[in-house]
């Protein structure tokens, strides 16, 4: 009897203690997760829904009145030849990034592993483009490409190739190439660090034993280094696909999408529609389309990743 009372008061106390800890627990969770989650949802997650909502209206963004037009913006978008041009340009940019930045980044990483003198200098300088703000870099390269005083045309002149001189950024034929080359200059060092980090992880013994088996350097590269870098190559390609959707600053500073929308990207076109022409509804339909593309890419990557994990390497 006595002991039964004791246990029941004990249980009550335990229960109360549990309740108090649980309340403390919840308070802790709200206090610690709440602030970050609130800022994040307000500025990143919620805007995706608002963008979709705005895309259903004809709206200039200044007046509060909007006209509901359902999917008319999307219909207009599908018929907009400039929009399709931006989609193609974005795709070209992805392809160009993968076929130029990745191999060049790999070569630079290999150079950094080679037994050469002045390694510190090479390493320091190779990395520098990554630290420059895209705006500064865009302005700098605009002058490098300048038709009269730019260094590229000056060097061509000096080399006796003045017939090759161009108004690089002003010509529809060369502008996209010129901009892509600048993007390549900026981001190749990023892939270089990724490759360098991955290559540091390859144990030297593998190469030693390959050498004993009589593999020459080329064979070592093709049969050891490259296969072991495969995960890095995949990660890098993914990053360049996602990155290309975000390209804006450089194009905006260098060409503003011109001449004749030859360098226009989805992001610059969306910006123009929203903040230069004040077609906020239409611009929202472009930015929501960008989100959908990013989503599709992400889902594909996740699916491919799952597949890869299933099949034993």
């Amino acid at each position, binding site marked *: 009897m006595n002991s039964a009372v004791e246990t029941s008061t004990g249980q009550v106390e335990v229960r109360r203690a549990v309740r108090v800890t649980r309340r403390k627990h919840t308070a802790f969770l709200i206090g610690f997760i709440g602030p970050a989650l609130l800022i994040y949802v307000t500025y990143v997650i919620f805007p995706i829904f608002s963008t979709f909502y705005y895309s259903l209206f004809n709206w200039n963004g200044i007046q509060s009145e909007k006209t509901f037009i359902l999917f008319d913006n999307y219909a207009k978008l599908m018929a907009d030849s400039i929009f399709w041009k931006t989609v193609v340009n974005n795709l070209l940019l992805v392809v160009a990034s993968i076929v130029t930045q990745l191999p060049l980044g790999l070569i630079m990483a290999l150079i950094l592993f080679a037994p050469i003198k002045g390694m510190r200098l090479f390493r320091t300088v*190779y990395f520098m483009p990554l630290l420059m703000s895209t705006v500064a870099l865009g302005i700098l390269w605009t002058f490098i490409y300048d038709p009269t005083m730019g260094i590229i045309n000056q060097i061509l002149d000096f080399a006796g190739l003045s017939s090759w001189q161009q108004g690089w950024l002003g010509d529809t034929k060369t502008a996209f190439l010129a901009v892509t080359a600048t993007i390549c200059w900026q981001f190749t060092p990023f892939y270089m660090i990724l490759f360098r980090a991955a290559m540091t992880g390859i144990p030297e013994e593998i190469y030693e034993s390959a050498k004993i088996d009589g593999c020459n350097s080329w064979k070592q590269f093709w049969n050891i280094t490259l296969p072991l870098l495969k995960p890095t190559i995949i990660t890098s390609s993914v990053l360049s696909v996602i990155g290309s959707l*975000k390209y804006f*600053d450089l194009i905006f500073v260098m060409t503003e999408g011109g001449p004749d929308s030859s360098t226009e990207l989805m*992001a610059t076109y969306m910006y123009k529609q929203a903040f230069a022409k004040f077609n906020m509804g239409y611009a929202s339909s472009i*930015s929501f389309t960008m989100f959908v593309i990013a989503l599709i890419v992400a889902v594909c990557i996740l699916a491919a990743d799952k597949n890869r994990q299933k099949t034993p390497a």
Partner: protein
Amino acid sequence: MIKIMNRTWLYILAIVFLVVTGYPFLYMAATSFKTQPEFFEHPVSLWTKLNFENYAQVFKLGIDQYFLNSIMISVICVAATVYLAAMVSFPLVRMRFKLNRPIFFLFLAGMMIPVHTTLIPIYVLTKNLGLYDSLWALAGPYIAFSLPISVIILTQFIQELPRELDEAAVMDGASQARLFWSIVFPLLTPALATIAIYNFIHIWNEFVFGLVLITTPAKMTLPLGLRAFYGEFSVNVPGIMATLTLGTLPLMLAYFFAQEKVVSGLSAGAVKG
């Protein structure tokens, strides 16, 4: 490790890359020390004598204000991100509750969301909050977009911390909050340094939110200021190059003093999302 080419070709290749990556910087610095006539006569050459007139002019036009604004917003946002990300990552890893996974995936999803999708709503929100055209307009988006990568890096790091530490602390009667602030948070220092460096570089160089949310020159950050100078100087190339050199200098100096830290900080962005 790699002996594919003979030495000579290797050096030639290494030097070609060195010139291509390095020369634009040299050109920028060299031009900034030239007078305009000097530049028009010898656009490609190095400077003959150091002439700081362009720099004096850039300061007279008020580049210091842009620096001040950039330093202020970057420091505040990085500090806020470091604290907020640490606070949110700890319970996500170490405490079991219903929303663990969904909240983590919500942050993970942020890695793939294009900034431009949020641009118009953030513009509208900023206007509604009365923050439009002030430096503080940038704080929300900068912190919010720094969180996903920071949370991913920190949750990975916390997973590797030994659990015995928190168990011992809880045994001693420490509350979760106390456990976090006095034991876990100090242990996070290396990861916090990485996210601080990564986010600082990105916020320091950020452009598009500034472009959309700020219009008054006195409130602009450095990248916006550089673009404003570019418009103002028009043909004064040495003046523009002095501006660019000044704008690039802070991160370069930081890089020269803490090279490995900056490199590893920047490559942290390559975690698989």
